[in-house]
């Protein structure tokens, strides 16, 4: 919330006369203009001695406000961007890829929900090992569940026919493409994500190897401690985290996969954690469950932008 006088060097129309006029109406920064009635302000300016200059100043402020929002796009431009940038990242799990029409969508926030020991981390590790063959990825680990041995195991399984040297090369490449951070509370996650955002913005101008996948395993462990009770701060943090992830996904062409756990609900059934306010934040929500005593998993759609909920698939890891 920079004060108005900081704008004076760049926009000489916002001189001390204008600043005093605005201050008399309780406006001290550009953000204050957002919640004031600008037409009323112009009407007050009319009654002032230097009305023309004041009104020019208001018009200048409006053009500054015009830079404060995202650009307007039409349908064709959006579609062009989607075709060029928002591909599918295959997870390497056939059942999941078929269900989702190719894999996890770049530009969208996908949530994977499941009770404990339902294979959520396994799906993440398998996806990480598959995506890291070609792209870099960032793995935010909240519960020390990241396992390089498991990644090596998945790579070994899919490359059975390759020579030992080729296997080693692929292993080296994948391992160097995976960036793993341990975060244990939501503020550490915000730190990492803001750092990532500024890195990506710099990289945009310079090129270089870009991150394509972001996995948060699991986001519910970060958010659940701040939720609950009567305070609204927890939900505000949760919503802010959701928007930051969606912004990263859309503006920097990442696919974001977050893990959520389940809690008990009425009648002994279980439902996804984080409550009703979280429900409308991810683009897609997938429910994962494991058949007892086997390694056959079920994944079903809870919510998807273009598919009906209930569609399911089975797979083996």
């Amino acid at each position, binding site marked *: 919330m920079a004060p108005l006088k900081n704008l004076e060097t760049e926009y000489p129309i916002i001189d001390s006369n204008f600043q005093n006029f605005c201050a008399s109406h309780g406006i001290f920064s550009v953000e204050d203009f*957002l*919640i004031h009635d600008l037409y009323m302000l112009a009407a007050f300016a009319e009654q002032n001695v230097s009305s023309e200059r004041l009104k020019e100043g208001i018009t200048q402020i*409006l053009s500054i406000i*015009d830079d404060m929002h995202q650009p307007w796009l039409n*349908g064709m431009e959006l*579609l062009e961007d989607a075709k060029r940038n928002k591909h599918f990242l295959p997870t390497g799990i056939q059942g999941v890829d078929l269900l989702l029409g190719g894999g996890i969508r770049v530009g969208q926030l996908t949530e994977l929900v499941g009770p404990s020991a339902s294979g959520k981390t396994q799906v993440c590790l398998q996806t990480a090992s598959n995506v890291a063959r070609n792209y870099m990825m960032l793995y935010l680990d909240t519960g020390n569940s990241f396992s390089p041995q498991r990644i090596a195991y998945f790579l070994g399984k899919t490359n059975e026919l390759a020579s030992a040297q080729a296997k080693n090369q692929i292993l080296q490449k994948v391992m160097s493409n995976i960036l793993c951070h341990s975060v244990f509370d939501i503020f550490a996650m915000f730190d990492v994500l803001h750092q990532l955002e500024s890195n990506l913005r710099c990289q945009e101008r310079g090129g270089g190897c870009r991150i394509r996948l972001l996995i948060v395993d699991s986001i519910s462990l970060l958010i659940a401690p701040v939720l609950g009770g009567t305070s609204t701060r927890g*939900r505000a943090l949760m919503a802010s985290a959701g*928007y930051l992830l969606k912004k990263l996904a859309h503006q920097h062409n990442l696919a974001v996969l977050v893990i959520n756990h389940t809690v008990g609900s009425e009648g002994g059934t279980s439902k996804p954690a984080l409550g009703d306010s979280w*429900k*409308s934040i991810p683009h897609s929500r997938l429910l994962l469950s494991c058949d007892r005593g086997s390694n056959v998993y079920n994944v079903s759609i809870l919510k998807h932008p273009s598919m009906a909920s209930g569609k399911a698939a089975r797979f083996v890891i």
Partner: protein
Amino acid sequence: MGSKAWLVEDESAREMLDRVLTERPFLLLPPLHRVPLRVGNIVEIVGPSPSAKTHILIQAAITCILPRQWKGVNYGGLGHLAMFLDLDCRFDISRFSDLLNHRIMEAANGSSSEVDCQIKESEAQNATTKPYNEELFASCMRRFLYIRCYDSSEFLATLKTLHYRLQKERETHGVNVHVLLIDSIGAFHWIDRGSSSFSLEGDTRKSLHLQSVTETVVQEIRKLLLVHPMLVMATKAAVLGNRYSMNDSKRNYRTWSAKDNLHSRNVTSSDQQVPYREYMPAVWQSLITHRILVRTTDADFVNGEHQNVSTYLSEWLLPPLNSVDKFIVRDTGVFVLS
């Protein structure tokens, strides 16, 4: 003489009605078809997540951007611009373009059931109609204007500059914006509530918290509608109240009654009639002229190809009609069942 000339009529009532109905027609959009909507109405579509609310908005947008007629085929649209303010940041343009394509093909082929079955068969037909449709498709897509807002400041900035944007688009395209779609209006509710209102410099300075943001949003929309008459449709994610869903609300009241036995009975009985839990400030509620509630049902509608499609129920709350409509979402859009 002069005063008598002042009393000469401009047009008869019938002519005026004709003119108004062509310039500002009533829209009957499924599943909101029971109440005709026109510019100046502000419709709120309430429902839990997910309940096809965004699809209803997409349906309205497609009806708005399709032309009434094009190369001899009747598309039944308005040929105007549609503006979409994406506050949820979840809009999927691929889904939108699929729905638009299917609507175009349905109108061109004349019957919807044929389109669903023959999509795979008529590849040859597609090849010849593709360029025909692509030109129409591109011109329709260009009439769809989209913006994302990641927080309240961006939303307010968009609204403040919307007047000039509307004028500019009118000059570029030659037609007006007919629908303004907001998805969804309660998106920043918790973030705004969480931002505490530090009152600096005494009481003269307003800060960006929930009440001031909502008041400004309502004020800007009212002023916009004076100069640019549009139909405004906003979705709102809400938790269903006692009337429909016993799950979450019952759990809350159970923990309440452990703490406060005296009041629990009063609360549950007064909440019986509320269809959903309202959280928007009163100033927004007073802006709304129409409200419809949508929700999913457990009953699945089995489509022709053995695909289970979710069924949704819609119920008008304002004006309160005592009827519940069932609808599904197909490839061509929202389809009313009953």
